[in-house]
């Protein structure tokens, strides 16, 4: 009781403090509420329609199987990451370990990556369509899609790798150079191992974006609902869901697909936070 009255007294002399307290609580309630609402809506609408036929080996307009789309999604993930991860990681290594600070070129790269990360994905889609699909004549294909997605997640991977590398204490680098080690050995043996979990969590975030992407893929990878090789057009799970709801004939199947999409994205985010936890452990 006395605690309560203490609080009330404080609020009486500082009314703004009460207002702010209430505002923050409203914000928290709204945020959690919206999240619960979306997840709840997807689950209630989707789970009843999660039938075994949705996972049939092949897609027909009757069963609306999402299995080909799931397979395509993982091919897309793999292909985009094989391109984007090494490129992004080496770019970050250059920025942190090799480039001189305040170098004009570095500032240009940083400006570019920041700008690129703010561009809507449809713009990447249109670029991919003009460049990979038309100019390089790769047609609507998984490869065109993967390249477009790789460009899209590149800034994300560069940024997170940069942060991970910067968080490695300079005293480790000094210690290594002080023993007569060169740059290459210092980077690979001393700097990269403690940074690896930070880099990994960036890659996993990139996976999440690739997984959920539609706009950039419609114009580059297309919407064919078959198992696709790199040179074929194929739909990922997100595109599958988009197509189903766009056609308007299979809303229930679209909802079921949404459940699967949600589960996988939640799993990926879980992995990301696990990797981040490992990073903070490594810092001790």
């Amino acid at each position, binding site marked *: 009781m006395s605690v309560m009255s203490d609080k009330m007294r404080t609020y009486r002399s500082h009314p703004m403090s009460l207002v702010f307290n209430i505002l923050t609580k409203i914000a928290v309630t709204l945020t959690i509420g919206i999240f619960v609402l979306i997840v709840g809506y997807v689950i209630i609408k989707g789970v009843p329609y999660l039938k075994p036929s949705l996972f049939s080996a092949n897609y027909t307009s009757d069963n609306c199987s999402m299995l080909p789309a799931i397979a395509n999604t993982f091919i897309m993930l793999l292909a985009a990451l094989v391109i984007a991860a090494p490129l992004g990681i080496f770019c970050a290594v250059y920025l942190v370990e090799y480039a001189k600070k305040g170098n004009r070129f570095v500032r240009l790269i940083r400006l570019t990556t920041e700008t690129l990360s703010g561009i809507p994905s449809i713009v990447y889609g249109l670029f991919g369509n003009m460049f990979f699909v038309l100019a390089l004549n790769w047609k609507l294909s998984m490869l065109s899609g993967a390249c477009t997605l790789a460009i899209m997640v590149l800034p994300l991977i560069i940024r997170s790798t940069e942060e991970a590398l910067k968080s490695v204490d300079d005293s480790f680098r000094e210690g290594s150079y*002080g023993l*007569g080690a060169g740059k290459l050995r210092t980077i690979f043996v001393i700097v990269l191992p403690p940074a690896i979990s930070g880099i990994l969590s960036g890659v996993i975030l990139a996976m999440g974006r690739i997984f959920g992407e539609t706009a950039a893929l419609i114009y580059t990878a297309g919407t064919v609902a078959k198992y696709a090789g790199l040179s074929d057009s194929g739909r990922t799970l997100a595109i599958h869901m988009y197509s189903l709801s766009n056609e308007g004939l299979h809303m229930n199947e679209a909802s079921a697909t949404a459940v699967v999409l949600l589960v996988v994205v939640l799993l990926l985010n879980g992995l990301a936070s696990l990797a981040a936890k490992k990073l903070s452990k490594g810092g001790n």
Partner: protein
Amino acid sequence: MTQPKLQVKNCDLFYGDFQALKNIDLEIQEKEITAFIGPSGCGKSTLLKSLNRMNDLVEGCKITGEFTLDGVNIYKDMEITELRKRVGMVFQKPNLFPMSIYDNIAYGPRTHGIKKKAELDEIVETTLKQACVWDETKDRLKKSALGMSGGQQQRICIARALAVKPEVLLMDEPTSALDPISTIKIEELASELKKNYTIVIVTHNMQQATRISDKTAFFLHGEIVEFDDTHTIFSNPKEHKTLEYITGRFG
């Protein structure tokens, strides 16, 4: 007079526009401990780092003058890896790598091409013994080095530096982050190592300089005010500034 182990002639050093060292001349004799003393920001650590070119890592750092090791110019006529192998360094804070004690010690020798396990085992044992930390570490060589106490870590750092068989050991305030007992251990260790190594130590602690060093250089505002036998510096300094500093009137 014998050739000095390390010699600095006419050295100026700039960080950008700031002149950190002014016209430094210094001779460091073999198998002696030379101490650098002076208030913070006087350039003593900067000069120490120039002796194995760690200042190369600092952007905007310009050095002029001549630095020689056994008469060879270390900025012109020597590979930087060769220099840092011969002139080892122990830093202010223990900076063991996040790996096992064994791998920490073996990192240097592996860098310089020693791969045989028997040889590495031998190096790990001898250097840890030299650094008086073998008894505390022999049962946990494969465990993370970061689990040791600060004082133990610093002695392992010294062992790591010794593992590449240097001739000179640079120590940059090696005890400033340690408790008094660890400090005494490091000081005893330095006096012991003097038999085989040339040691240059930067210290804020004037008692430490009197306890372990043979020669002392007093730095102020990027210049060496006085350089002489430690005994002379602390009992009968020639410069008024030195007297003021060692009697605690500033700094």
